[in-house]
């Protein structure tokens, strides 16, 4: 919705400046998205005349125009390349020292040796059109010499682009906006109603003898009015109508169409004009379409209708889709002489459904959907007749047809003033509330403690007390209401799970991982690129029915693609290292029309780690594993280990594992498969993990802190280096040592892995540091030695381990 300041002033003589009005509209709830001054930058442009043209002596494509800005005035030379200059033309002109709308200042210049002291402007240079004009703008020959261009063009106007919410249907017309301004800001001003008087041509038979209206579906069309105007001359509308329509963003077409649009903009009442002579038998039937019925609409598209849609038909066929768009056959053309003007009320839901189904959103359907003022149908029709008589030379046939099978019944709302005050937190007198409602044209009666408020017909948005409360607040002023805060009776807090997630994030941060947030809508192609489409779970895609693009076509089933994309894009930007994690929802399809499963996942990955731990040439893997070990230790989940993974084709076949916590598989960790890394621009060896956050929470839930006495007895250290077959997992040995050592062993740490010259081939050496300690006494060397030997015996029995350096 777009309105002009000058046009609005025709309906209410406001004193506010254009800027002030903009603020007032916004604060009234009619949000001004943009305010545009039509004559922006045109102050310096005046009307000049080309009095003489000379060839440019040094350039074929240039000419020298001599222009004057007053009769008998000085002739100013202007060098121009415009092809359409001619002697005698009136043109917009900017002299030396003047400024163009773009901010360019005109200076005296020499163009190929010839003096130029100004500029004859084209439309685009004046900001009147976007695209480059072919030549200068030519004005009418009667344009007054030396006169202000913007005033001559009537450009001294402001345009407000309003973003109207659905409850402001009444403001989709100029009169409605004027009424709103009056109610809120200028109750003393009078609304200036448009003239609606015209002469009915008594030589014509009454309209009821020429036109018959039959409403077959009153539930969809409670009111239908028609007037007939004969002998109209189809031509361009007068300049003022065209100017108003352009200001409203409507393209002028011809006088009849323009007049219907003009009245639509005035009254917020969509009208339709039919070529009367193309209506068979002069009979209009308002009925539901038949299933499969077809109509060609104004835009020359053939539309397939169904029985939920309302059409305007003659006895032969449908001639318009009611409230949405007229039919091509009955359209007003340059041959039209007699027009039938329709002004009706159509059911909002029906119009909306129809417009949606046919994908035809029109100015008319937009208004009918939101509800027009059913009581103003005849007045709007009369206004159209007045204009047709005045601007199209039409003869108005006597009488109006007004079929009104479902009479409007005003809603009456009971309003409790005490409740109003309670809801708003104010203390308004009943009389004040009544005054406010009356200003808004509600009628109010008192009934015991309550008010009976009758809703005017243009307030299609008001149906219950809350709506009135808003109106009262709006007029009283939202910003006049004092601020307070409700007293809290309960304690604010996060749930245990929310606290857990917060802690996990903090721990991962402290482990050096940056938190990332990636899109949960993704391209299926990313899953193909990462070999994930065959993976159980990961392939349970939830597809979007109406995606924006393939890039946002599915919901993520795992955090992997997002994480890998983050790692890859940072690597591409020459990041040498990156370590990230994300928590978020993934979605799994469990069958059509079933609610997809939502899982809360934690994932992460890194590349660029440098510590070649254990000489495994897998620094990223062990770095990431280390971060997770730290996380689990802090979460008191000590029973954690990795188990080599058999499946998971997206990971390096030799470097992938299942994450096992307290016997449960919670996720995986591994290096991205080298070929996938290559294909996805990821550094080789990048490591990644994902696990179920809710399951992790469930496992950690029972854990709580409990202090344990700190032992005061000394620690006895022993180092143990064993040589084992290289295929034996060190973790297994570590576990075996723990088992054999019993409680006395307080701590065990691997400190070296060795393979090489000093060890026979096919074997490796693993060196551990063991710390022995008792809770209740100082351990004796012999005790520890005895236990140490037991460990050694156990290892040699179970793993044929040899003790190195013993």
């Amino acid at each position, binding site marked *: 919705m777009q309105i002009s300041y000058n046009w609005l002033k025709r309906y209410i003589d406001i004193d506010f400046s254009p800027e002030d009005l903009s603020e007032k509209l916004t604060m009234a709830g009619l949000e001004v998205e943009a305010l545009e001054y039509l004559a922006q930058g045109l102050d310096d442009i005046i009307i000049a005349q080309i009095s003489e043209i000379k060839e440019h002596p040094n350039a074929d494509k240039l000419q020298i125009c001599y222009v004057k800005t007053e009769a008998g005035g000085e002739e100013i030379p202007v060098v121009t390349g415009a092809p359409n200059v001619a002697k005698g033309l009136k043109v917009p002109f900017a002299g030396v020292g003047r400024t163009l709308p773009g901010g360019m200042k005109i200076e005296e210049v020499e163009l190929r040796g010839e003096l130029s002291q100004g500029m004859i402007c084209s439309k685009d240079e004046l900001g009147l059109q976007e695209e480059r004009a072919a030549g200068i703008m030519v004005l009418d020959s009667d344009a007054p010499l030396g006169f202000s261009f913007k005033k001559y063009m009537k450009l001294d106007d402001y345009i407000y682009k309003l973003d109207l919410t659905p409850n402001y249907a009444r403001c989709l017309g100029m009169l409605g906006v004027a009424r709103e301004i009056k109610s809120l800001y200028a109750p003393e001003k009078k609304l200036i109603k448009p003239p609606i008087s015209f002469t009915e041509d008594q030589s014509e038979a009454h309209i009821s003898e020429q036109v018959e209206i039959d409403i077959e579906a009153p539930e969809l069309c409670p009111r239908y009015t028609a007037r007939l105007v004969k002998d109209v001359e189809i031509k361009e509308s007068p300049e003022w109508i065209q100017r108003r329509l352009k200001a409203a963003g409507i393209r002028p077409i011809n006088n009849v169409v323009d007049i219907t649009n003009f009245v639509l903009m005035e009254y917020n009442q969509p009208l339709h004009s039919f070529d009367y002579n193309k209506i068979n038998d002069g009979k209009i039937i308002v009925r539901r379409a038949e299933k499969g019925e077809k109509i060609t609409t104004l835009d020359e598209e053939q539309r397939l209708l169904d029985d939920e849609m309302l059409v305007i038909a003659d006895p032969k066929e449908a001639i318009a889709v009611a409230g949405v768009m007229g039919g091509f056959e009955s359209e007003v053309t340059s041959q039209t002489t007699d027009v039938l003007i329709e002004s009706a009320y159509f059911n909002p839901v029906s119009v909306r459904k129809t417009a949606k189904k046919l994908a035809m959103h029109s100015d008319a359907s937009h208004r009918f959907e939101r509800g027009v003022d059913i009581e103003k149908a005849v007045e709007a029709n009369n206004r159209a007749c007045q204009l047709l008589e005045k601007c199209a030379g039409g003869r108005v046939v006597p009488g109006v047809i007004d079929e009104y099978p479902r009479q409007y019944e005003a809603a009456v709302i009971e309003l409790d003033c005490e409740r109003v005050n309670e809801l708003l937190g104010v203390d308004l007198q009943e009389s004040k509330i009544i005054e406010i409602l009356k200003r808004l044209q509600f009628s109010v009666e008192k009934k015991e403690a309550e008010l009976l408020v009758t809703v005017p017909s243009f307030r299609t948005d008001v149906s219950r007390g809350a709506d009135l*409360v808003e109106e009262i607040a709006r007029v009283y002023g939202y910003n006049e209401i004092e601020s307070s805060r409700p007293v809290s009776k309960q304690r604010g807090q996060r749930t245990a799970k929310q606290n857990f997630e917060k802690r996990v*994030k903090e721990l991962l941060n402290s482990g050096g991982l940056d*938190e990332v947030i990636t899109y949960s809508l993704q391209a299926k192609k990313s899953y193909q690129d990462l070999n994930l489409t065959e993976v159980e779970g990961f392939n349970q895609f939830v597809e979007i029915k109406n995606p924006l693009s393939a890039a946002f076509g599915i919901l993520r089933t795992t955090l992997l693609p997002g994480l890998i994309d983050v790692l890859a894009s940072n690597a591409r930007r020459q990041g040498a290292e990156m370590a990230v994690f994300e928590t978020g929802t993934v979605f799994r399809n469990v069958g059509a029309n079933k609610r997809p499963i939502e899982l809360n996942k934690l994932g992460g990955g890194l590349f660029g780690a440098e510590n070649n731990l254990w000489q495994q040439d897998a620094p990223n893997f062990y770095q990431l594993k280390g971060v997770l070990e730290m996380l689990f230790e802090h979460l008191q989940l000590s029973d954690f280990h990795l188990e080599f993974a058999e499946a998971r084709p997206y990971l390096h076949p030799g470097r992938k594992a299942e994450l096992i916590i307290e016997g449960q598989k919670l996720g995986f960790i591994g290096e991205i498969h080298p070929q996938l890394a290559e294909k996805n621009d990821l550094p080789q060896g990048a490591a990644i993990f994902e696990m179920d956050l809710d399951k992790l929470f469930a496992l950690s839930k029972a854990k709580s802190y409990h202090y344990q006495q700190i032992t005061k007895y000394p620690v006895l250290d022993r180092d143990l280096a064993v040589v084992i077959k290289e295929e034996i997992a060190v973790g297994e040995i570590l576990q075996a040592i723990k088992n054999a050592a019993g409680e006395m062993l307080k701590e065990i740490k691997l400190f070296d892995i060795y393979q090489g010259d000093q060890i026979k081939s096919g074997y490796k050496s693993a060196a551990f540091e063991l710390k022995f300690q008792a809770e209740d006494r100082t351990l004796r060397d012999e005790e520890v030695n005895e236990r140490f030997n037991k460990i050694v015996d156990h290892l040699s029995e179970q793993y044929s381990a040899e003790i190195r350096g013993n």
Partner: protein
Amino acid sequence: MDLLKELKKIEKEAEKELKELSSLDQLEELRIKYLGKKGAIQSIFSQMGKIAADKRPVVGKEANQLKAKIENWLNEEKEILEAEAAEARFKAEKIDVSLPGAEVKAGRQHPLSLITKELEDVFIGLGYTIAEGPEVESEYYNFEALNIPEHHPARDLQDTLYIDDHYLLRTHTSPVQIRTMEAQEPPVRIIAPGRVYRSDELDASHSPIFHQAEGLVIDKGISFSDLKGTIELIIEALFGEDRDVRFRPSYFPFTEPSAEVDVSCIVCGGEGCQLCSRTGWLEIMGAGMVHPNVLEISGYDSNYYSGYAFGVGLDRLALLKYGIDDIRVLYENDKRFLHQF
């Protein structure tokens, strides 16, 4: 032989030599020379037999006194020399404090998390609990229960991404209002941050995926003025005390009265600049009194209870608060961006 003279001589010599001392090694040599088993004092004692018996006590006493004296001198001198040596050693251990410290890598919080947590903490302080809901929603929770019937123009306010005939991606966090009301009786006091989806093309200010936080308070006697006070407090917490706040009428199907909340521009302070489109104001959130239809649909008595609700775009909040000019930056996760927070 005059041992007493001898002692005097020793004393003089020792005093002289001690004065010339410059190292701990020399000090040790002197100690041996005078106090050692074959030292000067000892030699006096060993000559005692050669003198008259009656003189022995006198000489003995003098010799012991001198021994103690020298010992004292040596100790004093030792302390000084040790202090000097330590001083010298510390000087030699001087380091270049300008060399960089060890690299300790701590990860960063994503700015969206940062702002969400900040907001949550303010609300927790006000007695709110944090509520959550699914991202895939039914028509009922996303629209109908929020007073947005199927064929109402209000449906156009949000372009929806659908999964099938029953389910869609929630277009706002407001369904959590309904889920909360279904699950509990008043009083209700929640804040529900979460991810939401719209069919909006990705550009500098729009993203099909973004984040909102929904607030809902329902109790007996909750008023529009309570809503105003709460929102003003939040804006003060997030943007400081110097911001002006204004409420203007707006429309949300699930609130009535409804308001749009503007805050005076954080860049120009109200003068008008590019960020605020020269209006001096920034639209920051939507709010209103819970529509009685919404209360009733969820089984609350709208004549007894009342409530307010508000919804704020977290991405927009982060953009404004941290001066980010493109929403896409939030989801690109460039390390150089993440490491600014």
